[in-house]
């Protein structure tokens, strides 16, 4: 800091100091702001973890023994919803407390609108040491936007076994296209062909040799993203556990790990755990518009692989939690465990690259660990990813900005959950974010009723629209479509959704 102030600067500073003193002594401060508490916040996200495949939430396979163990001291949200069905909208909603149609990050690798760059979880905790990491490049696109509000942004390569980090360093200003071009040029395995005819073979050999020693531990291959950015979740767990102990406090940590996202490469400890267990999920009709032509056998196989990958993520979260407990950090750290979206293996659809908004792709787990809590609380009220940000603000005594669309989660809210509250989720991968929503899937949930409106898709036939209504309490698997039976409810929710759509489209007309 420059200590050589000139006279004019000194007078300005003196004036501000006296004004500051006057405000303080007159007590002119926002009355609604509770006293800030200096507790740490740790948000841990496991990508593409569907609540439908989590045994803690009733799944028949025991996929989450560690979560079940830890849940005994947590608040467990059983009906928690992502903002969208893939990483970009799901994560952006979690990080901004706003719905995709508001923050506008809803296309593949999309970004939040300019006004939301300074409306993230990192911006509203300025007194915390803010650190973030993600394996997932789509999340890194968002974190890149919020970089100004981060004290430490860990590049994704930091926790990759072998990566293209040098490329990012060389072409900092053109990272996206340089990386895509590199992949197209040299990574033959990605699409089956590459621009390079001979060096791509040598490159593959080189990469294979670097990870050859790890192969026996991962019978289905080593976890990776974008073909050959290999990583080990246990390495990430260990690194983060040790890094957290070194951080200045209070800290806000956001760690977003890829498992159990595709490709489902579990550790050998869990390999084959559910294969041949004889369990069959309920039969569901193939979605005529959005099915990807996946056979039932393939879907069952991938579901099994996914479930076995969840076991790996579950073990690693258990280890992370135990590390935190052993280090004493849990005594003054709020820990949030959640996901950004779900995954599905039914109706001819696998994964989450779909326009469909069935429960498995949008219902995600949420657990909050309160410092000192040793009792379990189960919350069945529907909640949304956009509620996490305001809840954390309230928990540490910070004011909630007016742009936040979420509400404080029960049991922390000052009022009881509103049974009339409507929750929304959205997919609009093909819709220009700067234009009104004309190709989208929108969901509104009120009480036990869930209405989904699909519109603008050519594959829906001439009408280009499909409406679905389900009563989730009576039919959690969404097997009985009710829009033609419960016409009043359908009409009521459609009007609600149309009003909302008109409201969010208005600025883009």
């Amino acid at each position: 800091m420059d200590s050589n102030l000139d006279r004019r600067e000194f007078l300005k500073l003196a004036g501000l100091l006296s004004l500051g003193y006057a405000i303080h002594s007159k007590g002119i401060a926002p009355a609604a702001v509770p006293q800030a508490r200096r507790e740490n916040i740790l948000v841990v996200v496991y990508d593409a973890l569907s609540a439908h495949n989590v045994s803690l939430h009733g799944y028949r396979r025991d996929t989450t023994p560690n979560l079940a163990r830890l849940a005994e001291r947590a608040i467990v949200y059983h009906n928690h919803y992502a903002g969208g069905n893939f990483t970009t909208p799901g994560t952006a909603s979690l990080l901004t407390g706003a719905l995709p149609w508001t923050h506008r990050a809803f296309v593949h690798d999309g970004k939040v609108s300019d006004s939301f760059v300074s409306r993230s979880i990192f911006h509203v905790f300025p007194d915390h040491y803010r650190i973030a990491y993600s394996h997932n490049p789509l999340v890194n696109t968002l974190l890149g936007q919020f970089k100004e509000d981060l004290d430490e942004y860990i590049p994704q390569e930091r926790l990759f076994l072998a990566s293209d980090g040098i490329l990012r360093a060389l072409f900092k200003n053109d990272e996206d296209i340089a990386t895509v071009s590199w992949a197209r040029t040299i990574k033959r395995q990605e699409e089956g062909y590459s621009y390079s005819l001979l060096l791509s073979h040598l490159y593959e050999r080189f990469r294979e040799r670097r990870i050859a020693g790890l192969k026996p531990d991962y019978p289905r291959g080593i976890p990776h993203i974008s073909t050959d950015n290999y990583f080990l979740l246990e390495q990430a767990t260990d690194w983060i556990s040790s890094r957290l102990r070194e951080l200045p406090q209070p800290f806000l940590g956001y760690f977003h790990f890829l498992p159990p996202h595709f490709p489902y490469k579990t550790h050998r400890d869990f390999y084959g755990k559910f294969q041949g267990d004889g369990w069959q999920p309920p039969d569901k009709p193939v979605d005529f518009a959005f099915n990807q032509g996946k056979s039932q056998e393939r879907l069952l196989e991938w579901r099994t692989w996914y479930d076995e990958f969840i076991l790996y993520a579950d073990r690693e979260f258990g280890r992370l939690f135990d590390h935190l407990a052993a280090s004493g950090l849990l005594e003054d750290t709020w820990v949030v465990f959640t996901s950004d979206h779900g995954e599905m293996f039914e109706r001819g659809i696998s994964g989450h690259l779909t326009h469909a908004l069935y429960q498995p792709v949008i219902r995600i787990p949420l657990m909050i660990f309160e410092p000192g809590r040793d009792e379990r609380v189960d919350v069945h009220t529907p909640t949304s990813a956009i509620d996490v940000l305001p809840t954390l603000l309230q928990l540490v005594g910070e004011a909630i900005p007016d742009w936040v669309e979420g509400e404080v989660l029960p049991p922390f809210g000052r009022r009881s959950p509103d049974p009339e509250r409507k929750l929304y989720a959205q997919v609009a991968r093909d819709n220009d974010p700067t234009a009104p929503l004309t190709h989208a899937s929108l969901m509104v949930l009120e009480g036990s009723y869930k209405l989904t409106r699909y519109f603008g898709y050519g594959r829906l036939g001439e009408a280009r629209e499909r409406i679905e209504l389900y009563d989730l309490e009576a039919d959690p698997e969404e097997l009985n479509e009710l829009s033609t039976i419960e016409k009043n409810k359908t009409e009521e929710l459609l009007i609600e959704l149309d009003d909302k759509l008109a409201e969010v489209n208005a600025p883009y007309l």
Partner: protein
Amino acid sequence: MKRFAAFTDFFLKRYSRQGLWSLFLTVAFVPHTWTLVLAFRDLSWVTERSNAWDAVGLTAYGLIFAFLESLVIFAVAALLGLFVSSKWEENRRIAALSFLALNAFLWAALGQLAFLLDFSLPEELARILIQSGHPVRFLYAGSLALVLSTVLAPTWLILRSDRMLRFVRAFTGRLSLMSSFYLLFDLAALVIVVVRNVT
């Protein structure tokens, strides 16, 4: 340092500048053509997901890599050429090396084309291979025989027959002309990459 100077002397005694340039241009032909074909194939999806400038950027990076790959393969070919007896004049050695490099690239391109066109072995042949009890072994042996036949016979002909030499030189001369244009594209690609990274 002395060793390096001695090696350079030895190298330059074996090759003329013109011979090396001709070899490089021939080597550069296939990787550039292949890159351009695939980059044009990618143009639409990049433009659709991003914009036309990014699609141009993708092609530019690809071309620069094609140039680097050409350089590497050229260096390998030139070094391998040092093992060819000097009893054959330079023209023959360059023609043989050019042919070998082209051959390697073409087989690699065929391998990728087989994937792109979803080629699979005829059912009858696959059945015979399976019945043999060692399908992979026979498949490798067959492939090796096929590749070797396209390498050994033409190389022998280039080294022995003036007619074949004339044909290969005329052919590589035409490829070299095309490659000269590719080098201009490379220069433009370099400018594009610089502009993208500076702005």
